[in-house]
């Protein structure tokens, strides 16, 4: 392993460039969710009363808990970058592991939340849902679509962070070359960022 660590960054590697690429990718993700936000905004103005009612059915407690969990995980990722930059490899890995644990907590919460909805027969296409007023139906459609898509992003983020951990272990990522951890960190913050907006839209605006 020791030799690999000393490999000079390849000629083609461009730190600023890869970060810029990551930002551009983040923009596309923002616009992907942006499309759904547009839909939400339109229906929310058309059916504000129904949205109000439906949003009361979502579990604010789990929502808040998950917000807190994601915010903390965002911080640990940010800290692990600090750790790498200050050459504290072990600490960086530990912080990322904490992040992964938090991410799993998020997913478990999500699982229970969705599970509860399914118990109440509130899932897309169910009879209960189809008989709800139009606005509530749309709200739950959006709820599943948005939180579902977000959950997929959480999973992708987890995979990215896991790979990052291994790359730190193997010495590919170090004080002199940390664009990978920085970029997966950016991705993780994006996941957080999206949730910051989903949270009030789904749980708070009642």
């Amino acid at each position, binding site marked *: 392993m020791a030799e690999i660590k000393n490999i000079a960054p390849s000629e083609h590697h461009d730190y600023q460039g890869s970060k810029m690429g990551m930002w551009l990718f983040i923009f596309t993700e923002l616009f992907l969710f942006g499309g759904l936000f547009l839909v939400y905004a339109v229906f929310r103005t058309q059916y504000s009363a129904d949205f109000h009612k439906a949003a009361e059915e979502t579990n604010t407690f789990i929502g808040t808990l998950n917000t807190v969990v994601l915010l903390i995980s965002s*911080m640990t990722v*940010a800290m692990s970058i600090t750790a790498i930059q200050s050459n504290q490899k072990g600490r960086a890995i530990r912080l990322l592991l904490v992040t992964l644990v938090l991410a799993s907590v998020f997913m478990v919460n999500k699982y229970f939340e969705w599970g509860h909805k399914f118990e109440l027969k509130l899932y897309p296409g169910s009879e209960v849902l189809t008989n709800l007023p139009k606005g509530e139906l749309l709200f739950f459609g959006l709820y599943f679509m948005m939180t579902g898509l977000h959950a997929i992003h959480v999973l992708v983020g987890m995979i990215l962070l896991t790979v990052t951990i291994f790359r730190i272990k193997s010495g590919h990522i170090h004080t002199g070359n940390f664009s990978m951890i920085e970029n997966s960190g950016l991705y993780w913050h994006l996941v*957080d960022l999206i949730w910051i907006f989903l949270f*009030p839209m789904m749980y708070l*605006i009642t």
Partner: protein
Amino acid sequence: MSTEKHHISTYMSHGVVLTILLALTALSVGMAELHFGAFSVAVALLVASVKGTTVLTYFMHLKYESMFTRIMVGGVFVIYVLVIVLLFFDYLFR
């Protein structure tokens, strides 16, 4: 590579940012419990925007990025807002 200067944030600063974010979360949950009606929508979104900006600025390091990156991020949000405005030109004037 290693010649480039990077800003290294301290652990402390991350902790402070997190505290602010948690406080804002508490604020918006609290506001929602109070039921201000249409007003609470505005507040919730406003708080979310503040939180989002905080994450962008500190966690995502925008504060220490090049001018161009910052303009780019700002520009993208401006475009998105313009799209919303134009879309609502339709829905609000129906």
